[in-house]
Structures are given as C-alpha cells and as structure tokens.
C-alpha cells in the first residue's frame, strides 16, 4: 500500500482530471486509501482504526430513525403503558431493523448502486415509481414531523418556531458545507450520538430496575385492557419508529457513497448492529424517562415532545427537563438531515443526475437543491398556522409500517438476485428472517385496519391484559 499516491495530488481537482475521473471519484479514493492502509496493518490498533473508518451509515441510519416522531412514540408508550411488554418489544423491533438493514449493506457493497437505481433498473419504471411514491410520501410527512419535534424541543427554551426551523436548516447546511462525504458523516455522527442524552435523563427518574429487568423475561405487564385500538396504534407506531422505507434507501446509498466494498461487509454489519444497540438503549431510556407519568396517571395523549419535558420537570428537575427537550430537538435535526439526504440520493439515482455528498456544489446542483428544498418545504409547512400537526406526528410511523412490506419485497428480490449479487445472495436463514419480518409488518398493518374499521373484533380476540 505504500506506493499509493499521497494526498498532495488532490491539490489539482477536477479541472485537471481526465474525462474518466471526477471530483467525486478522487474524494472517495482518498477515503478508500485510508481504509486500504488500515487493512494492510496488523494488530488491535489497525483493526480499531479500520472500524473507525468504516462505521457510519449503520449508526446514522439507526440513530437517525430514533427521530422526532419515534422518540415521541417511545415517550408516549412509557407514559401510557409504563415499563412492561414494550421493553422487550422495543428490542425485538430493533432486531427486525438489523435483519432488514443488513441486506442494504450487502446490496450496496456488492453492486455499488443505490436502492432506487436498482429498483428502476431491475424491475422497470412502473414498479420503480410505485416505490418512489411510497418513499416521497413517507419522507415528506416524516420531515414535517421532524421540524415539529425541533420546534417543540426548542420551544421549551422559549425559541420561537421560525427561529427553531432556521436553526435546524442552518445545522443541515453546515454539515454539508465541506462537500465531502467523510466530513458530513463525522459531523452528523457526532450530532446523532446526542440521542443518548436520554440515558442520563432516565437515571434522573430513579427507574424501578427490578420491574425493568423482569419485563424482559416475562413481557409483562401487558397493556391494561388488552389489544385495544389504542394499543394497536402504539404497537404500530413503535414498529414504525424502528423500520421505515427511507432507512433502506439511505443506508444503501450511503454505503455506496462511502465506497464500501465486498471486503467491508463484515464491518458494515458491525456498524449496523452497533447502531441498533445504541438506538435500542436510547429508546429504552426514553421509555424509562416517561414511565413516571404512567405511575402518576397523567394523560399524555397529544404531547408533541416538549410537553413531556414540562410534565417531567417536577420529577427530573429543570436541568433534566432541559436535556430532554434538547434531545427531542436533536432527534428532529439529525433525522431531517438523513431523511432529506435519502430523498436527494433517490432523486439523483432515478433522474440519473450526479448524487453524492462528495460533489462540489457546481457539479451537484440538482442533488443539493432537492436536499435543501425537501427540508425547506417541510420546515416552512410547520410554520403555517392551523395545520393539523398532531395528526402528522401520529400517522407518520403508521404510514411507515404500511409502506414497508412492498419496500421489503423489492429488497428481498434484489438481495436474492444472483445476477447482481453473485455469491452474496441471502442465505436461506436470512430469507426466513426477512420473510418473517414482511409477514409481521403486514399482519401489524392488517391489525391496525381492523382496529379502525371494526374495533369490536379486537375485543373478541382476548389477547393479553384482559
């Protein structure tokens, strides 16, 4: 590896490049050069450095999905049902997320193509546009929900809504300003780790560790009243808080943009599992944070985030409540970055326009324009008075669950496509798991449909609490 050309050649970027090599290629090559050098080394330091270089998309996608509506959903779960059935259920949903996201790592590393691009290329524009329609609808609604979370979180400190939206937009632009995937990834990772702020906040509430530990063994207590319409919505909302279509598009495209290859798949998997572990900790912490509201029998039905902080203030103090509100705002900001980027990647792949975070502004005009327009439009909508924002918060996760089965079937077909995957097609056990996830998500959707159309049927099921 020592014969690799040193960094100094980057002094003359695209202007001097031949027709084959672009600025994007040069930036990616520099990132890959560091990976190759670390891989060539021996010992713990080299392996640790390799891990440091290769982590990113997995942690970002998992912590990014611990977004505004997800954190509100976890908070609502804790406040309405306390610690019990939902503690192990959260872990189960993140295991589901690992199964799903691992496939995108393999797909991206094996094909070097984004998710939208592969769907269009392999299945044609007819099915491609359906997939895009689901993505666009889901992403836009979720982006609106992210800005609602930012507004609610910063609103706790008296920040006016317009300023909260501007702060979120400014952070999004600052993360992009270097036009370098690596820098963007590290800045966003640092911001995403703030999601763990809910852990100290949970400790402030002095949780009942015995009940918490017992819940993982018994899955009890089950929500009072059994499987009611409300419980179904919460279950669906919590599933939608961990697996959504944008995650598939984002992680695969980010894997490609980062330049991961077949040799990096092991680290890609580790990155995904690490991300899921951190996200599970944050989700469980959030549940523990709001569980005291359940004990005090406080109604939290229409809370948007900051209301939880206000309600918890007598228990966790002003400092704890402030951390909580900051955590909600941060969740919205990080997700608004990752979700608008997933939209921009998908647009670039479908429109066959340059799409990379390594693109300078001039070469990536359409990519950056779509990215910023998505975020700006969602941010502006949040400022329109009289819009039913609470409804948006409540339905985004539900819509995510409903749109997942078709998205997963495309993913399943792609990872089993020997023509593009070669020997990296899914093994049988992975297919069994993926099929189980599709069936589970479809069943959850059907259960939701039944709970809305014919809620009386649920009472005859006699499932759980009674």
């Amino acid at each position, binding site marked *: 590896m020592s014969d690799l050309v040193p960094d100094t050649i980057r002094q*003359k970027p695209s202007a001097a490049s031949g027709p084959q*090599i*672009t600025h994007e290629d040069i930036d990616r090559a520099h990132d890959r050069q560091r990976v*190759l050098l670390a891989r060539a080394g021996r010992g713990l330091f080299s392996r640790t450095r390799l891990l440091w270089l290769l982590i990113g998309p997995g942690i970002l996608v998992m912590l990014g999905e611990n977004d505004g509506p997800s954190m509100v959903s976890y908070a609502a779960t804790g406040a309405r049902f306390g610690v019990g059935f939902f503690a192990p259920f959260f872990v189960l949903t993140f295991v589901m997320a690992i199964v799903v996201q691992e496939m995108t790592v393999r797909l991206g590393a094996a094909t070097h193509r984004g998710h939208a691009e592969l769907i269009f290329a*392999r299945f044609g524009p007819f099915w491609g546009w*359906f997939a895009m329609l689901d993505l666009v609808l889901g992403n836009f609604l979720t982006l609106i929900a992210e800005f609602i979370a930012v507004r609610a979180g910063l609103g706790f400190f008296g920040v006016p809504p317009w300023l909260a939206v501007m702060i979120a937009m400014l952070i999004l632009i600052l993360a992009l300003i270097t036009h370098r995937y690596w820098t963007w990834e590290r800045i966003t990772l640092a911001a995403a780790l703030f999601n763990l702020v809910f852990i100290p906040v949970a400790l402030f509430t002095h949780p009942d560790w015995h009940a918490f530990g017992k819940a993982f063994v018994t899955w009890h207590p089950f929500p009072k009243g059994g499987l009611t319409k409300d419980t179904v919505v919460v279950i669906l909302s919590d599933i939608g808080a961990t697996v959504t279509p944008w995650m598939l598009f984002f992680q695969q495209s980010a894997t490609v943009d980062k330049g991961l290859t077949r040799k990096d798949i092991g680290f890609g998997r580790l990155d995904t599992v690490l991300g899921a572990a951190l996200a599970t900790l944050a989700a469980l912490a959030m549940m523990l944070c709001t569980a005291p509201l359940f004990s005090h029998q406080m109604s939290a039905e229409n809370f948007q985030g900051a209301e939880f902080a206000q309600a918890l203030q007598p228990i966790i103090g002003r400092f704890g409540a402030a951390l909580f509100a900051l955590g909600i705002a941060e969740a919205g900001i990080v997700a608004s970055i990752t979700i608008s980027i997933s939209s921009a990647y998908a647009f670039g792949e479908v429109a066959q326009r340059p799409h990379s975070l390594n693109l300078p502004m001039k070469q990536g005009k359409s990519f950056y324009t779509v990215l910023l327009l998505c975020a700006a439009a969602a941010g502006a909508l949040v400022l329109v008075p009289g819009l039913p924002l609470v409804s948006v918060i409540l339905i985004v996760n539900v819509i995510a669950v*409903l749109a997942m089965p078709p998205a997963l*079937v495309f993913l399943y077909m792609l990872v089993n*496509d020997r023509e593009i995957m070669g020997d990296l097609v899914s093994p049988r056990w992975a297919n069994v798991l993926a099929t189980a996830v599709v069936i589970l998500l479809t069943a959850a959707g059907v259960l939701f449909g039944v709970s809305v159309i014919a809620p009386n049927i649920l009472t005859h099921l006699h499932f759980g609490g009674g």
Partner: protein
Amino acid sequence: MNLEEGTATAQEDFVTRVLEHDQLSQGKKRPVPRRHLRGIELLVLWSLRIYVLFMIAVVVYQVMQSMR
C-alpha cells in the same frame, strides 16, 4: 508532458488503483440489465400495492375521524 497533464495522469492512476471499476462515476453509468418478473412475483407485488392503497385510505379515514 506538462505539469498539469502529469498531475491528471497521477490522479487517474491513483483513483483507478484504489477504487473498484464499478465504484467510478464512469463505471456507474453502465446500465444494469432489466429482469423479467415472474407470475408469483407480480402477484405478490400487486397484492401489496393494493394493500398499501387500501390501508392509506384507512389512515385518511382515521385522521378525519380524529379531527372531527
């Protein structure tokens, strides 16, 4: 060979040595061949499409109910 050409060649050499061919912007322009969907695949895709459309209608109904 002038300095600019030399640098460009060095860049090209470096990039092609470090990246896999498919990772280059040029390589990504190569079209991925279309595959033919089988009957069972079409059945699953259509069923799920109808499921999504129906369920979105259910969500809209529920939102309207809750807003009333």
